[in-house]
């Protein structure tokens, strides 16, 4: 696991922004609750392509949301939304969701899908996504218990853009996967809780 200094620095930054909340500063909860209509109450999604974001690493969320804003990360709607917030507000949104408890889906895939998915995971993914996708840090999101609809979509998007996927070694590895393998991998992570 990587060191955890960055998240705590993020928290300090958030405190600084909160103390300045006299005029015009919107609280993390005020900003983040607007997301729940699509990502579920407090970021625990009801499915299927909308990812749960509650309990994600705040450094990871901050960089993903920022990349939506700049367009570095492709999106359908997230870019349009994130352009409406300052970097400090995006920081606050990320920190708010990072504070919430992770909620896994209650789905469990078929045994054959899990077997294929686990093989791919152990061969190609585990060096970064440790503990069956339970471990997370500012570069790797939690995937265990995430909606397979979202994982599938994220993996397909990564495969489409290949080396431009961030980090690019992820793109290289996903490029070789078939639709069925991506589906199995997504189901495997969803089944881990």
């Amino acid at each position: 696991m990587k060191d955890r200094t960055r998240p705590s620095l993020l928290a300090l930054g958030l405190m600084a922004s909160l103390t300045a909340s006299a005029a015009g500063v919107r609280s993390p909860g005020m900003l983040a609750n607007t997301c729940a209509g699509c990502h579920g109450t407090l970021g625990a999604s009801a499915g299927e392509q909308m990812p749960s974001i509650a309990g994600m690493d705040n450094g990871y969320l901050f960089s993903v949301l920022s990349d939506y804003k700049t367009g570095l990360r492709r999106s359908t709607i997230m870019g349009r939304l994130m352009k409406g917030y300052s970097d400090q507000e995006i920081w606050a949104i990320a920190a708010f969701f990072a504070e919430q408890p992770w909620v896994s889906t209650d789905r469990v895939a078929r045994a054959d899908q899990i077997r294929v998915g686990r093989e791919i995971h152990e061969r190609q993914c585990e060096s970064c996504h440790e503990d069956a996708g339970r471990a997370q840090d500012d570069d790797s999101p939690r995937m265990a218990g995430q909606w397979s609809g979202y994982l599938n979509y994220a993996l397909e998007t990564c495969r489409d853009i290949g080396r431009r996927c961030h980090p690019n070694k992820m793109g290289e590895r996903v490029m070789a996967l078939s639709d069925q393998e991506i589906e199995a991998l997504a189901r495997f992570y969803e089944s881990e809780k």
Partner: protein
Amino acid sequence: MTDVQRRAFLKSSAVALGAAMLGVSPGMSAATPKARVLVVGGGFGGTIAAKYLTMADPLIRVTLIEKDPVFLSCAMSNEVLSGERDLKDLTFNYRGLARRGIAVVQDEIQEIDPVAHFIRGTSGNRYNYDKLILSPGVSFRWDKIDGLTQEVAERFPHAWKAGPQTLKLRRQLEGMEDGGVFIIAAPPNPFRCPPGPYERAAQVAHYFKQHKPKSKILILDAKDAFSKQGLFQAGWKQHYGDMIEWVSGAAGGSVEGIDPKTGTLIGPVEDFPGQVINPIPHQKAGALAELAGLTDASGWCPVDQRTFASTLHPDIHVIGDACIAGAMPKSGYAANSQAKVCAAAIAAAVSGMPTPEPSYVNTCYSLIAPGHGISVAGVYALADGRIVEVEGAGGVSPSDADARIRAVEARFAHDWFRNITADMFT
């Protein structure tokens, strides 16, 4: 059981539910809540206001009063018209909110006393409040289209409130012969769900394409432009050729009357006979808002856009379609967002805290065909007391998106519905 007994029973069961909730948090007394907040209207706005108030401060006693036993969503009801979805899938109950400690009461409010701070229902029950939140939705202006009365609308359904009207329109479409003309009369702004009439045209076209391919769809519009217009028109063309024709207000589309005998809509230039007619009435704030004296000359409710407190009666807040909310459209997501801002403002006020700085969002998806979704998003802030769109953010799906993006947005449309209803009812 006599009425009086039933009334007493209802009252005591509501109290019992409240007490059960209060038992959850130690140190609280049922007798001394921090504030009594009533929420009237259990739709996209009211459910969220009730839930987020209890989340913000469990010491606030929240009661949600709704006239119907279940909620029927207008969002996604165009898919019932195309046959892609069952009305059952749009039906939700209030048990999840009751489990959160909200007292959910079925009653229809018929009296509001803003001075004495109480409301009364048709049950005869009187409910006292410190703060009242109304989320009454829209009502129809029956005086705008000549001959279109509530009674006539039973034969020519608007289907702009989901339920029996939706099913009636579906049956009429099913009964129509191939080669018939289906006419939608789209209302002037502002009205509930700005992209709704145009999504409806697409969904009905999807049904016709499979079952009645020689049929036509005519949209007679009071307006000269509409929401996501470019995306809709391109999508109609792509999937349905020239099946759908849109007549703008300037081109004579503004419907002035209906002849119920012949099933004809009367325009300023020509008349339009159709086999199935769907006149969507002009709209104003829900009847409850008018009853309470919360509307202005426009028919909608002026509010402090920071808190949604009525500018006419400050201890009554109005959220959702009924209120005047600056640049925000009258959509389910807007109501959801406004409810959260309103709940945060009330939670702060009853604790003597400063009013929080608000943040609002709207996202709205429309389905042109299975696997073809489009969206509009808006991010909003308060500026000089008015809700304004944050510049550089928001907007509609790109016009040149490929089929894969359209398919992704179609799936997001269904996930939007899954999540926004989970936010409301769980």
